[in-house]
């Protein structure tokens, strides 16, 4: 049973979003980290990079798999979780505590297209 936090928004590609004012904190779901197995590398954008909803902004690599990270919102990257550069396994330890990027949103209405916790739970069938 994967952990799903109430109050967050989720994408169908298994990213979560926590809204803090106009900033979206983005990570991957507990379900996603379990599916990937031991994560060995998180490929992240740089601060000031632009991201677009529905488009790739980085990738997760495990020992023998690689999976794109898809941005749930559009905007400008204002922070990346540098801890993950040397300790990518933190995503396995707690996928919600260990966010990946923070995005200053250019169009917060995009949040409405994302799933709530109940809908995401239904999506992953748990």
């Amino acid at each position, binding site marked *: 049973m994967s952990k799903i936090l109430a109050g967050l928004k989720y994408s169908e590609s298994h990213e979560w979003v926590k809204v803090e004012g106009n900033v979206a904190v983005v990570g991957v779901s507990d379900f996603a980290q379990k599916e990937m197995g031991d994560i060995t*590398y998180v490929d992240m954008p740089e601060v000031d*990079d632009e991201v677009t909803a529905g488009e790739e902004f980085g990738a997760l*690599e*495990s020992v*023998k798999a*690689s999976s*794109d990270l898809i941005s749930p919102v559009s905007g400008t990257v204002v922070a990346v979780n540098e801890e993950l550069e040397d300790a990518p396994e933190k995503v396995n330890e707690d996928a919600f505590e260990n966010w990946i990027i923070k995005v200053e949103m250019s169009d917060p209405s995009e949040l409405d297209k994302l799933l709530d916790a109940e809908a995401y739970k239904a999506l992953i069938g748990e």
Partner: protein
Amino acid sequence: MAQCAYFPHTDADVQAMLDKVGVKSLDDLYGDVPKEFLKRGAYALPDALSEQEIRDYFHELEQMNASLKVFVGAGAYDHYTPAVIPYITQRSEFLTAYTPYQCEISQGTLRYIFEYQSMLCALTGLDICNASMYDGPTAAAEAMKMAIACTKKKTRVLLSRALLPHVIKVVETYAKFHGVELGYLPAGDGQTSLEALQAEVRKGDVAGAIVPSVNRYGIVEDHAGFADALHAQKALLVEYCDPSTLAVVRTPAEWDADIAVGEAQSLGLPLCYGGPYVGFMTVKKDYMRKMPGRIVGQTVDKEGRRVFVLTLQAREQHIKREKATSNICSNESLMALWVTVYLSLMGPEGLKEVNRISADGAHYLKAQLLATGQFEDVFPDKPFLKEFVLKPKKFPGLLQKKLEEAGFFAALDTEEGYVSFCVTEKRTKEETDQLVKIVKEG
């Protein structure tokens, strides 16, 4: 349908398969091919030959090969291949080897690739080496793609005009089909221009520059300031090297290069009518996740024994699919083994000696040729090792032909109207004097 000894399927098998895919005949499978491109009727092939006839035929062809004394380099060098190399590499365990797919069971193969990687890292001074590339020019093309992948949103790669002509052509081909824009750095005085590099980099769209360590004129280039200019705009410095010369010239690491590539034929591989050769690539650790090809790493098994594995596979095409920066999922394994045995045998001192003897021979030949009065020195103040160019005062095309008739491959015509010479440790003073004598006779 026509039966063939090599097809195992019966007519009933074929019919069952046709029924399954829902077509009437084998011809229907080619329905999408325009009629005019379909071959009808028999092939005009000669009759089959017996084994002895085949041997005789190829022996006749072999007799037509001319065995010339090689005084030309241009990217492929006639260095000596010690007999121990073919002896070891032709052991059946090695000779049948291909890049390891069932990798961890192939510990012997992984081990020599690991040693190969370690030796190339030592030669170039960079952190990480892959399991080898197809050849030097394609390694340069991969470096171009890697520079684009490492520097987000930059679209242009600069090539030095002093790179070998065939390297430029292969990189141009890859660039065309990967949508990479190329810029060119002039080398009018025999050395890639730093001023031109600085001017191009200032435009802001440059992902990297590929420059030769020892260039097409044989000149040892000075790359002071190159890395600074490129790194200031987050662009990469790629050094194209003849790895044999890295024993005596400044290494890519000493120039603060990010990637080193080149043709490793000069490390013990015979010329052999053009191949197989082997390319190499080493990179700074920062860029290891964008590196093409396979990488062998060292670890310990569950009993604590030293073992070897393929590592960082998540970059490779079979996992990353169309997002992979390269489609190379192989290596040039047997040729990498030749390099490994050669370097093990020569050691750092042996490789220095190869360079010293070659350079002594080349400097002697150049002095003798200039003394004939038939040439102008093109780049008199530039340092060179085993290779150099001269400008003939008359009829360059005739000289190469004349020397060929006398048993020498020398005085290669270049695009610029120069003639190019190279001397390796295999060439004797007697051979050199004989060549000069023929030139003198004019």
